[in-house]
């Protein structure tokens, strides 16, 4: 079982763009009279470009706290934590099933603050696991495709487009390879639960000889270069930044359903500086941290009192019914089941090659 997880994690790691061995931010303590002092060690699978505004604001508020942030891939993050659970104060990861599993196994300690109690139920598990971002999974389409075939607004549109213009689009569609990407696998399992028509879509991908890649970054690069006309299941928080700078690209949040992933933060039970950790988590899910997320990052703020650009509230207002956040519940554990993974991937491969097998 363990090796199964390891491979899966490895794949997830590949999915995390710009994951490097040791990306590190350090804010030395500059004690001010009357301010809390201490240390805080954060390990996260969250790019520096996203985390930096948050850390800076926190450090401005609590200059007495010496702050160390390490950006790790989801696999090193998970394994390093299991090896030394008493090294880190706050653990942030986009790998929801793994974070959930850590909390489920009792590695997290409850926060129990007012901010934690006020946090919406759907975005937390017990008082231990907090989802503090709101990132839709999107399609990115090139202008050429929109001009020729119209803009696909939903999965049904996409399926119809692929079925109708399969030959024209051959090789021009790109998506995650679920057998190599943990994120792609998580989305596949969620989508297959949502509707059996997902398999038709997979078959249509197979028909159009869709390209299978490992990361959102790869997809975005190919789309920007014009190699691909349509990217499916990109992480919205990364896509938004690229699309905003490239007029040839357009981001589509499907209006029938759009998965939403969330970054989960937890405080380990053996956190060496629990007071600082509590302070940081309170900041992260408090109004201020959330405002930073809304205004200075593309992660999407969750706080129910925030509205406007860059918040879950705004996304809900525009896409309402369609948004399907990954449920923060034991269903995530099923994602990690080794046999489940094998079964799903087998089915995926079968559906993907359904047409070619029929054609043979």
């Amino acid at each position, binding site marked *: *079982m363990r090796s199964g997880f390891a491979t899966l994690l490895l794949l997830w790691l590949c999915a995390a763009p710009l994951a490097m061995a040791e990306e590190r931010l350090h804010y030395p303590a500059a004690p001010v009279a009357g301010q809390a002092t201490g240390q805080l060690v954060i390990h996260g699978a969250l790019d520096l470009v996203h985390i930096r505004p948050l850390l800076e604001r926190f450090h401005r508020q609590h200059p007495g706290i010496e702050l160390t942030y390490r950006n790790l891939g989801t696999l090193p993050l998970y394994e390093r934590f299991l090896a030394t659970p008493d090294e880190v104060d706050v653990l942030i990861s986009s790998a929801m099933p793994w974070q959930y*599993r850590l909390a*489920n*196994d*009792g590695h997290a300690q409850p926060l129990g603050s007012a901010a934690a109690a006020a946090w919406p139920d759907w975005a937390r*598990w*017990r008082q231990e696991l907090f989802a503090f971002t709101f990132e839709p999974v999107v399609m990115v389409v090139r202008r050429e495709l929109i001009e020729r075939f119209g803009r696909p607004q939903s999965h049904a549109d996409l399926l119809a487009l692929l079925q109708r213009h399969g030959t024209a689009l051959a090789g021009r569609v790109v998506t995650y390879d679920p057998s190599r990407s943990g994120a792609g696998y998580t989305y596949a399992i969620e989508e297959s*639960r949502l509707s059996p028509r997902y398999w038709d879509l997979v078959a249509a991908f197979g028909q159009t000889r869709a390209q299978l890649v490992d990361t959102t970054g790869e997809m975005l690069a190919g789309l920007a270069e014009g190699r691909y006309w349509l990217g499916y299941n990109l992480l919205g928080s990364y896509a938004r930044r690229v699309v905003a700078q490239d007029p040839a690209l357009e981001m589509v949040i499907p209006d029938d359903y759009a998965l939403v992933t969330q970054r989960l933060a937890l405080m380990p039970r053996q956190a060496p500086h629990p007071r600082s950790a509590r302070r940081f988590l309170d900041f992260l899910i408090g109004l201020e941290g959330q405002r930073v997320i809304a205004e200075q990052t593309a992660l999407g703020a969750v706080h129910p009192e925030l509205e406007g650009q860059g918040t879950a509230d705004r996304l809900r207002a525009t896409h309402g019914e369609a948004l399907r956040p990954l*449920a923060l*519940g*034991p*269903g*995530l*554990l*099923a*994602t*990690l*089941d*080794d*046999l*489940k993974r094998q*079964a799903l991937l087998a089915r995926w491969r079968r559906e993907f090659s359904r047409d070619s097998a029929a054609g043979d």
Partner: protein
Amino acid sequence: MIRRDSLYRRLLTWLLLPLLALGGLMVLQAWVEARRTADRAYDRLLEAATLAIAEQVQWQEQRLWLDLPPAALEMLATDAEERVFYALYDAQGDFVTGNAELPADPRQVGERGDTLLYRDIDWHGLAVRQGIRRARLEDWRQRERFEVRVAHTREGRERLAAELLRGNLAYILTMAALAVGILLLAIRAALAPLTRLRRAIRARDPRTLSPLELSLPRELAELRETLNDLLARMRRVRANQERFIGDASHQLRTPLAGLSARAELALRQDDPARWREALEAMHATSVRTSRLAIQLLSLTRLDNPEYRPELASLDLNALARQAVRTHWHACHRDGIDLGVETAPAPVRIRGLDWQLEEALGNLIDNARRYGARHVTVRTHASPPALEVEDDGPGISPGRRLLMLRPFHRGSEDSDGSGLGLAIVDGIARTHGARLTLEDASGGHGLRVVLRFPGDTP
């Protein structure tokens, strides 16, 4: 502060203590029951989850295969957000898949294909409830056995149990409060007649001795009857006392009136011889009156129930002889034959010699006054007894008891005080002796016997 014993407190203690113990038991039972109910309700989730998982177990690629339904795990987590664990084990007990290597349950439940076991275990520091389903594949070829083990933490169960317990506790506490209230009222009501009795007694005039008229429950009615008996006795005693005082004042008034009349008469005359005569008569009357006063005093003293004289050992024979010696002259002067017949050996009893002497004196005096010719004083050894027999007119049996009353005289013309026999009776009581009046042996006359308790000491 002295804690006074109280019926109310006793009743309260002995009723409340068992009640509280009972209440405690009920709370305990409610707690056990709440837990059991919560477990039963939540075990259904384990059952459903294991079933959902077991249904997805297949034989594929020469091994057990599970397409884990996420819903099976979501089922196990309720609003209480329990931690959830699951595992699939094959017939050999080897781990197939799962998120935790849950322990096996050693219990065996028959050999039937589909069985379920529940238990509470402590697993890696977590208190979890485990459910194990033993099942077998129903494939065409394969009949492989397998085991689905699931577990979740107890938060939901505890929340439900606490909720159930809270409901039950409210009920039990209300009941207890009601029971205590009723108990207090009941005890108060039961003890109310006691208060009524107390008030009735307190409200009485201390001089009235009339019986208590008050309807009371049986137990207190007995007390009331006893009280009324006592009151009746006191009434009789007081009636006797009143009569005695009346009689005594009457007895004293007559000689005093005589004295004053005699003195008045003498004062009208000048002859010293007459004076002397009057003085002699007055002297005789005053002697008689003072004797009467002395008798009254001794009778009062003898009637006092508090009077407990020191008794000394004495010989009845000596006493009898002494009495005869003392009274012989007076009797001889009146021509009465006074004799003594003593027991052969000394008859020793415990008593007061002066009282017994007075008793004998009174008896001899009585016999003399009522016209006896022969008076005999006797003593008997066994039982020790003192007896005075005369051959006078005697007393008819019907009047004998009356004779023991003060101021009751055998005949009106006699100059006796009527206290003699009453005093003898009082002396007999002081000695614990029995006084009887009998017919004399000669056929007429009276025999008065004092029988002392016990044998010759």
